[in-house]
């Protein structure tokens, strides 16, 4: 009996030692996640973000700074560390319960009782719970990598928006300058006695509107700049984009079906949902045993009474006479819900990939159309207006209006380029496994997967 008891304890401690192999280190876990994200997105945290911030940034550098500096991202990545800690915890044997009872001495003899027991479910389902924790960790890691990919993409979008807003502000300043020139001209005409006051007021009203539009554009540019700084985790550093112009729409759209399949294969939210579904299914499979043994304990009893020592076994069992069926059903429902979420996510990712592809193709086509057709047309319009002005068929105000039309075409190009680059980033993000921008059909990727995780054990 003694020998058997000893062997049980030996087994428990050995398992505990083995379980200790799952290490928990938050910094290492974050590095693992960022490496995985970098492999996918080619965006790695900047080794020296401060040095980068000291000079004008490219879009890639902005993403690198964002991965290195953003506290919100670090908080999101901590979830993966917590899941790893939970996995490490699940890898250890359940803690035993030791109960010691001492009775008042009787007849000069001390009486005491020692019970050592362990939860049977935890012991028997130890590998099972370890596997569940591993599944939860996998899902959390997918979510964390997705968060990093998304974060790099968000930084790129903020970069694009900041450059575009600055360009727009420049253009509205040009319109204001043109309106001011028109006012000066009409005031000269008025001073020469050539036009009524009405004409002056008309131009002044247009100038006032131009000033207001420029003020709004300035504010928009400032806000976009702040948003970029925030996305980079560098509000104090005043990050400056290196380019004053958004790049031309050079990227060709990938082949659609291949892109969609690649996006589905790469999707991290989908992988997370898959891990959660598998975990829920595994949990549901063991729910019957869990229900039976949930409160069952077994152990040894040592009793010292009147100088005699007795040993015995202890078993405690609470039969699930009334809630067994409900618990099993709940576990089954959770498994089905997780499977449905996975299916919905798969459909959502496919739809998002199709939508992103269509959106990119349209945005690229629009940007190229504006570049190749509208911009040259507005340039030609201005040139032809100049010719007609020289021929004295049109007046100076027609010329200024044509200039404003050219600026408007330039603004249109900035809008189109901004839409193109956002669409490009969305396309790239999906190819890298990031979260679909609008996964409403499947629930928001990371958040939905997290809900699934919260619903399980």
């Amino acid at each position, binding site marked *: 009996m003694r020998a058997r008891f000893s062997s049980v304890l030996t087994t428990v401690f050995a398992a505990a030692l083995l379980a200790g192999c799952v290490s928990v280190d938050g910094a290492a876990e974050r590095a693992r996640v960022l490496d995985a994200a970098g492999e996918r997105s080619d965006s790695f945290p900047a080794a020296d973000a401060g040095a980068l911030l000291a000079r004008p940034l490219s879009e890639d550098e902005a993403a690198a700074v964002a991965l290195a500096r953003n506290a919100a991202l670090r908080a999101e990545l901590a979830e993966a560390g917590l899941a790893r800690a939970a996995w490490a915890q699940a890898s250890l044997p359940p803690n035993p319960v030791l109960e010691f009872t001492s009775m008042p001495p009787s007849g000069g003899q001390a009486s005491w009782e020692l019970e050592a027991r362990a939860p049977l479910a935890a012991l028997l389902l130890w590998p099972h719970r370890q596997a569940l924790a591993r599944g939860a960790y996998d899902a959390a890691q997918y979510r964390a990598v997705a968060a990093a990919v998304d974060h790099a993409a968000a930084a790129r979008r903020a970069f694009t928006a900041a450059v575009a807003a600055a360009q727009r502000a420049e253009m509205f300043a*040009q319109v204001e*300058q*043109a309106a*001011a*020139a028109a006012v*000066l*001209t009409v005031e*000269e*005409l008025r*001073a*020469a*006695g*050539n*036009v009524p006051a009405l004409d002056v007021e008309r131009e002044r009203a247009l100038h006032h509107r131009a000033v207001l539009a420029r003020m709004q554009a300035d504010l928009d540019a400032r806000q976009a700049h702040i948003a970029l700084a925030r996305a980079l985790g560098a509000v104090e550093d005043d990050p400056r984009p290196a380019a004053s112009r958004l790049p031309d729409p050079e990227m060709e759209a990938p082949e659609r079906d291949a892109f969609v399949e690649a996006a589905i294969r790469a999707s991290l939210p989908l992988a997370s949902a898959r891990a959660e579904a598998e975990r829920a299914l595994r949990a549901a499979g063991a729910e019957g045993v869990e229900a039976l043994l949930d409160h069952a304990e077994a152990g040894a009893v040592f009793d010292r009474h009147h100088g005699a020592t007795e040993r015995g076994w202890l078993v405690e069992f609470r039969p699930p006479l009334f809630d067994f069926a409900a618990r099993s059903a709940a576990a089954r429902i959770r498994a089905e819900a997780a499977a449905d979420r996975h299916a919905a996510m798969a459909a959502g990712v496919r739809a998002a990939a199709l939508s992103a592809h269509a959106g990119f193709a349209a945005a690229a086509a629009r940007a190229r159309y504006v570049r190749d057709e509208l911009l040259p047309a507005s340039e030609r319009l201005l040139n*032809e207006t*100049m*010719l*007609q*002005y*020289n*021929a*004295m*068929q*049109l*007046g*100076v*105000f027609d*010329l*200024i209006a044509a*200039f404003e039309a050219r600026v408007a075409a330039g603004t249109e190009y900035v809008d189109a380029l901004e839409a193109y680059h956002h669409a490009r980033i969305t396309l790239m993000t999906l190819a890298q496994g990031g979260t679909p921008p609008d996964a409403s059909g499947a629930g928001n990727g990371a958040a939905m997967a997290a809900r699934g995780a919260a619903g399980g054990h």
Partner: protein
Amino acid sequence: MKLSRRNALLAGATGLAAAPLLAASAAAQANPARTMRDGESAPPGVAGRDYRPVITPDGAALPYRIQGGVKIFHLVAEEVEHEFAPGLVGRCWGYNGRVHGPTIEAVEGDRLRIYVTNRLPAPTTVHWHGLVVPSGMDGVGGISQPSIRPGETFVYEWTLRQHGTFMYHSHHDEMTQMALGLMGLFIAHPRRPQGPRADRDYAYLLSEWQMHPGASRPDPNAMEFNLLTFNARAYPGTSPMLARTGERVRIRLANLSAMDHHPIHIHGHVMTVTETDGGPIPQSARWPETTVLVPTGSSRTVEFIADNPGDWAFHCHMTHHVMNQMGHGIPNMTGVNARRIDRAVGAILPHYMTMGHDGMGDMGPHVESGHMPVPGNSLPMVGAQGPHGYVTMGGMVTLLKVRNRLPADGSHPGWYDDPPGTRARIARAEELTRDGVDPAAPPRP
């Protein structure tokens, strides 16, 4: 052969030839533009024998042949590429490859048969403006005749029972077809000329167009016109009239402008108005003019002795009619501070230059020098370089060149060389002092 009214009545039942004679004869009784008696006939008039052909500057005469005592003409209405002046070509509608159509010349009493072939994409007709013809030959689409459809050839035939300066033009969709150029001169010479014969007989058809600078087709929808022409040419594209000193010059002016009359002014001479399209003005009723108003749809004939050698402007005196392709919807820049505007607008448009602040006179030289590009196929206010500077006129302008001698080949004699002391110049200081003129003195009432 003499054709009495009775004979005409008898012949009338036999065909096309006789019926117009009857109508024309009856209608012609009250027409003063006749030198032939009622019922009188004559062989087809021949140039040199019966008349001296008119000169249609920048135009041409329509050839004819005589068939059975009838003068046969053939007009072909078609699209024509026409040069209004060097640098401005329009896709117009004309006759026989010309805009305007060639001048038809005939002699009072001629039997005329004029074929009209329509090669236009639209129906057309030809109306013989001012001519007394049988009703069915009047050429008014829908009233006198069915319009001539594309590809069809109609024939008009009548006997000319008057003389004078007349016109022909489309009378189908007149606004469009006349705006595109479908018109020409019709000169009827008298069978028995009265009074002194002109040494030079010039004929002009006045018209107006809207040619948007840079466009290549006249705009028939326009009610404002930016190109005013003598024989469909705008200065500096007009050829000058030539005369030797002492010659009698006749100028026939016919106006088919859409919306404007034209007061035509001659420099250096006094003209006598001798005829309208209604006929010759009796000697006692003729009046002297330096400017003769030619209403639209009318003709006026003037004569004068070219007794003043020189280069003389001959032009419409409506000032907007002596501007080529002038825009009218632009701000009045006269008197503005161009420098301030140049700075403000030049900041956004580096090639900008304020124009019109000191008038339009520099426009032509700027354009011609090439530093101020204008739309292709346009003549924005372009004039021409003259012997003493830039001529700031365009449009309905030409020159009368009177010389004691002219080149025998009829070519341009060059610019007039004023005899010493007969040209305006800068006043010399001693002249100003002598005459008590102080240019810096404040103006006196």
